[in-house]
């Protein structure tokens, strides 16, 4: 009984955490889209597209790496916290 309400609370928090992670992804993707948009504008106006592309080449990967690191940590934590539990049970 006690355990069940615990799990339900965990579920809520877990979804919240998932949401936060996806928010970060949305943020990163938004930035990427914005930069791409600017590039397309500069290409249309033929207004120094080179620079725009160069910058995007640096900026976009950076943001994606950051996001993926976070996801990596999050996933890493959860995947293995279970296995650890199994280990402890095994003892």
């Amino acid at each position, binding site marked *: 009984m006690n355990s069940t309400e615990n799990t339900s609370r965990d579920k809520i928090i877990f979804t919240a955490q998932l949401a936060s992670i996806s928010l970060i992804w949305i943020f990163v993707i938004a930035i990427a889209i914005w930069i791409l948009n*600017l590039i397309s504008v500069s290409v249309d106006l033929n*207004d120094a597209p080179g620079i725009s592309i160069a910058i995007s080449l640096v900026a976009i990967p950076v943001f994606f*790496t950051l996001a993926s*690191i976070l996801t990596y*940590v*999050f996933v890493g934590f959860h995947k293995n*916290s279970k296995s650890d539990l199994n280990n402890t049970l095994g003892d």
Partner: protein
Amino acid sequence: MTEEKTKTIDIDEALYRPIYETGRGFYLTVGILLMIILFAAFMYVRQVYYGLGVTGMNQPVTWGFYIVNFVFFIGISHAGTLISAILRLSKAEWRRPITRMAEVITAIVLAIGGLHPIIDLGRPDRVLNIFTAGRLQSPLLWDVTSITAYFTASTVYLYLPMIPDIAKLRDRGGKLTRFYDFLSWGWQGTDHQKKVLNRAINILMVMVIPIAVSVHTVISYIFSMTLQPGWHSTIFGPYFVVGAIFSGIAALLIVMIAFRKVFHLENYLKLIHFQYLSTLLLIMSLLWFYFTFSEYLTGIFGAEPHEMDVILYKFTGPYAIFFWSMVVFNFIIPVIVLSFKKFKTIKGILFASITVVIGMWLERLNIVIPSLANPRMELGSGMYFPSLTEWSLFVGAIAVFVLGYVLFSKFFPIISIWEIEEGREESIKEVEKRVKSYLPGPAETSD
């Protein structure tokens, strides 16, 4: 296992106290700060309503305090992430109580600094044009991108190492358990989790350093990309970065000393920490002087007339007082204070750090205003007097910084507890091992 845990808690109780015990002092400070911030906000609204006329800016001095403070704050922000990253990379063991404070500075100041260009806009209502019709060719856009990147990176870099501590708070129960539970991302302290976390942190600290460097380089580009005398200089990138780290360290020292005093952390922040850091400060001061020297020497030696107008404006003209006090604050005072053992007390270091912060602000002032005040054409030289609006927004910005810091320390430990523990448990052995590893092995007895 369990008893050990309780023991450690007792040991580091000092670090938890500020979170759980709230004195009248806290409310008082927060109240005062809020009032200052509200006033500043009012002044800003007024500015938006009437137009930038309420500032002291004019033609030809079209940029004033806002841009100066923008550069200044972003500079300060280099305290944290960059320094802690370097210290982590170089496995400097004394870093452990410092890194968190440093990183928090970054996160907060960066947010403040990043807002300044928007405060400076004549039409903030149109700021979204940057997204619809932006031009990546404009250095301003480079700033927007690099600052966003740096901000995300450093917040992440602040957050990840905090997870274990948050977990501790969660386990302690008491207030905001859910909140901490949410933030702790299910940290159990298992070996695998530790491994994951360390790996992430290691990747981050490698990544953060170039980003941080790029940020201030790009900010210097705002100026050096124009053709204006005194701005159009290749040295600006590194010059700004050095200046940034310089002021960053000073700011960090001030913050450390402040918290040491307020939260009685003498036990964690020992004199040695300050002395190590201040040595770094001394080095930066020398480096800064070297850059300043070469910057102006090239100008004077070339003696291009318009360059000279600007330089004389700083050396002997209306800005002489700011320029020379900058030199005194950034170079003479720090060098004198920090190179003599007997001055190298907490007080001495605090004094030096404060002068450095002021000095670095003056440096930004000396970079922005004189070049604008001396246009190339024969229009006579302009003058700039900041108005009340600009002053109050400056003070307001500082207030926001302090408030942010105070609130942070209300919810999270400002010294990384788990790293301290880690230090206690492993580092001594580890350091021993490491030192052994670079000592020559026992001589083989040839028998």
